[in-house]
């Protein structure tokens, strides 16, 4: 009898946990995020903290820096006016969608490719950058292209779609998913895998920082990056699309591309100008 009592308590507490998660105070889907942002004069962006050139926390002053950061600042100014403030919250590939869904951030600008799987969970703005997936290897590696990865180990990051993509080109590849790019790179260096795969801009940043490693071969996919917003936020999405067009039209976009990708070896910045 006593055992049943324990079991009952256990089940009750599990149910309680489910219920508490289930009902928040005011559903996010009924709020207008754009209006909230205008009221607070602040737009909160989820950005990367570990990706050189796109979004990287500078250890000297603790500020995020990169193309996406500058782009987010420019878009915020277009949407909220000159005095609009952009607030940055650092996210990972894994945490960005949950953080968006629970309302911690208003929009995701964190090297996120627009794809069908994610569209089921969130909405996307128009693309703001066209990347492509590639592989990073040690100099002199026998891996020349992605197809060579069959029966080899390839390192990716949890929550990014690059891991599934590799499986399409090299079905027999063994995949290790690590927590973030910094850890993935160290794992590659310590020989846990033969190649590291993700988008070419991210790999380019790693190759710049780590002599002896290079981006191998051409990009084998196209990865249009989009800004992620919650479902049921048409106003914010429209405002973002309009702001992206304006930033492209007034030349800010190309200026930022040149600033960040102007001298990355092996990466032709003219291909991504708009």
């Amino acid at each position, binding site marked *: 009898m006593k055992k049943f009592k324990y079991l009952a308590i*256990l089940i009750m507490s*599990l149910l309680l*946990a*489910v219920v508490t*998660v289930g009902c928040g105070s005011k559903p996010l889907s009924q709020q207008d995020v754009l209006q909230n942002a205008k009221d607070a004069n602040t737009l909160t962006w989820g950005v990367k903290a570990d990706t050189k050139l796109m979004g990287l926390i500078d250890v000297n002053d603790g500020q995020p820096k990169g193309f996406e950061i500058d782009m987010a600042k420019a878009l915020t100014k277009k949407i909220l006016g000159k005095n609009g403030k952009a607030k940055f919250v650092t996210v990972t*590939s*894994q945490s960005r*969608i*949950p953080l968006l869904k629970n309302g911690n951030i208003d929009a995701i600008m964190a090297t996120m490719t627009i794809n069908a*799987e*994610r569209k*089921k*969970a969130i909405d996307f703005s128009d693309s703001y950058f066209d990347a492509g997936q590639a592989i990073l290897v040690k100099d002199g590696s026998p891996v020349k292209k992605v197809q060579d990865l069959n029966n080899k180990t390839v390192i990716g990051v*949890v*929550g*990014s779609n690059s891991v*599934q993509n590799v499986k399409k080109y090299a079905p027999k590849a063994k995949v*290790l*998913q*690590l*927590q973030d790019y910094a*850890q993935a790179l*160290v*794992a590659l*260096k*310590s*020989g*846990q895998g033969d190649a590291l795969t993700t988008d070419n801009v991210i790999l380019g940043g790693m190759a710049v920082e780590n002599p002896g490693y290079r981006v191998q071969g051409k990009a084998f996919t196209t990865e249009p990056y989009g800004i992620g917003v919650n479902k049921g936020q048409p106003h914010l999405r429209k405002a973002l699309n309009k702001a992206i067009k304006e930033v492209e039209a007034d030349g800010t976009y190309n200026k930022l591309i040149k600033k960040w990708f102007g001298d990355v070896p092996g990466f032709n910045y003219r291909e991504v100008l708009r």
Partner: protein
Amino acid sequence: MITLLRTYWSTFLTGFGWTILSSCIALVASLLIGSIMAVFEVVPNKTLRTIGTVYVEIFRNIPLLVIVSFFYLVIPMYVVKINGFTAGTIGLTIYTSAFIAETVRSGIKSINIGQMEASRAMGMKYVQAMRFIVLPQAFKVVIPPLGNQFINLVKNSSVLAFVAGFDLMYQGNAIASQTFATVNTYLIVGAFYLVITLPISYYMRHLEKRLA
């Protein structure tokens, strides 16, 4: 939640299997190493006592994640190539054994010194007295805290996820990031951990009743 479980049951089970395997290996190994270190800490020999104390104080006071990352990232660079699962299990063993050593030591200390003296007076060697008289009584005393350590060990095995050790947490992360069903995935992962830890809880309680 049912559909999630149905679609990914093989992935969950794979993770479940690796978690159990890692926990079992770490449990046996850390109990062995921990007991040896506990004895080292109380023997009259000064060198052994220093080894025991240094071992416990170092590994008890470093975060588990740091130990595991060391074995995953540093050891392969300079010594020998080991994969995430091995690195994680080694780290888990070392970390838990330090706590088990402290637990067992407290058990040994709780046994009246007269037991040891009487055994020695009967002509037993120190090792014999330890093995046949003191340790059996000490283990009885420390069954409840040992159970705690075992449960902690199972839960701590989730660090394998950080070094791609294919365990429950690793598979859970992968599934959550593919399906975005974050809440449901982690609820299932939590339930799987309960499947391992609850029986341990009950068994330790049973053991406690029977022996003590």
